């Protein structure tokens, strides 16, 4: 690889090629790309490439670019310096005191890098040469949307159920008995009563007409029954069974069944 006889001036064709390359310097993707292009001029398998000759070609290229005052990016110059060093290592007898890698090792690695880059270029071309979607083969023209159906289901355990029931029953047990319930008409009672009656309340009727029998004379019982019936009426209005109105403050409150719409 480091045959000193190869260190002859590059021939005219090489020079011309180098000039063509210089004109095109912007087209190179870095020094490795340039080296790969130069290596093609050797017209040999990359594995048999003369790195020394390649280093020479590269340095000639850089010199030529300088002559033509073409500005080269820094990495091209760094590569030139490294190749100059590599060239001297390949040409000079190895220095026994030097523990660094030999020129041959460095040259072999450069050859490997070039071969690898070249291989990547080739497979990239093969890849792009494959049948491609949307150009050579095609997907379904009318894909159907997969509907996402979200179904919500509820669950409860027997324990939840029993706790729920226990909660209600416990509440019952603690219902305060301090009031005289005989003279209290509860909202529940009123509701029950009203529910049975509202079906027949087609026209506006005053609230007092709904008070149960026997609850219309004693004032405290009238109060209790009226309050309960009124509360029950509101509940039924809320449920949409009943309509309620009062023409002015303190005027009689009137009820009727909500007309069916």
């Amino acid at each position, binding site marked *: 690889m480091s045959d000193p006889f190869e260190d002859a001036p590059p021939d005219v064709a090489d020079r011309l090629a180098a000039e063509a390359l210089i004109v095109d310097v912007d087209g190179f993707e870095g020094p490795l790309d340039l080296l790969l292009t130069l290596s093609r001029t050797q017209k040999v398998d990359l594995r048999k490439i003369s790195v020394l000759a390649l280093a020479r070609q590269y340095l000639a290229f850089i010199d030529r670019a300088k002559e033509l005052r073409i500005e080269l990016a820094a990495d091209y110059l760094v590569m030139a310096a490294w190749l100059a060093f590599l060239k001297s290592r390949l040409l000079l007898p190895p220095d026994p005191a030097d523990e660094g890698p030999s020129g041959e090792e460095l040259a072999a690695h450069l050859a490997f890098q070039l071969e690898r880059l070249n291989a990547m270029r080739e497979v990239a071309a093969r890849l792009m040469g494959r049948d491609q979607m949307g150009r050579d083969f095609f997907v379904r*023209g009318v894909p159907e949307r997969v509907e996402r159906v979200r*179904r919500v289901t509820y669950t409860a355990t027997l324990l939840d159920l*029993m706790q729920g029931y*226990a909660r*209600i029953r*416990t509440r*019952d047990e603690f219902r305060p008995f301090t009031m005289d319930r005989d003279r209290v008409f509860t909202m529940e009672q009123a509701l029950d009563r009203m529910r049975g009656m509202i079906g027949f309340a087609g026209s506006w009727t005053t609230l007092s007409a709904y008070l149960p029998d026997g609850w219309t004379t004693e004032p405290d019982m009238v109060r209790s029954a009226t309050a309960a019936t009124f509360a029950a009426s509101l509940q039924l209005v809320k449920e949409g069974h009943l309509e309620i109105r009062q023409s002015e403050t303190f005027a009689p409150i009137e009820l009727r069944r909500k007309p069916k719409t």
Partner: protein
Amino acid sequence: MNEPLEDSLFEAPPAAEQERMVEAILFASAEPVSVADMNARMPHGCDASIAVRAVQKRYEGRGVAVVRVGEAWAIRTAPDLGFLMQKETVEVRKLSRAAIETLAIIAYHQPVTRAEIEEIRGVSVSRGTVDQLLELEWIRFGRRRMTPGRPVTFVVTESFLDHFGLESARDLPGLQELRAAGLLESRPAPDAEAEEGSEDDQQDGLFDAEEDVIDDSDD
């Protein structure tokens, strides 16, 4: 890629090849394709009207079907496989407290009217709660109560028993058992303790009543 096109200038492709073409065109097109359109796209000498019928036959009974849409043709999913185009995700949620209580009342007191449920719970029962329980198929309508207004009653269903692992609604633990299980934590007020016996009687009464009721609802 253009070879088949050039061959065709001399000779129409074989029928099997024409069928492949129709298949590919119908597959890739966003809209139904007319025979004229297929012919225009296929090499000269092809007859898409024959090819498409052959393709239609080939797909008979398959997962997709070649169907005629007006003057054009298309590939569509077989109607019986529409369910595959849905991805069902099931979300399980805890039943609300109101719903659990309502359900418990129905289970313990069935058949029970809405007014009775409200009386026991002390608050009105929203329509949504009842609807939810009906939808879950945990309750259903029982017989109408033979009282003024003939209110409907609610009873629990087989699915309810299934879900809660019960043989019958009578297997639901009674108040005493609930208390024994620690579910009725708060003891009643001291003065109420004396009445405990009668309370249990009441409880028994409840179940007696239920037995009758269940018999009723079974017919």
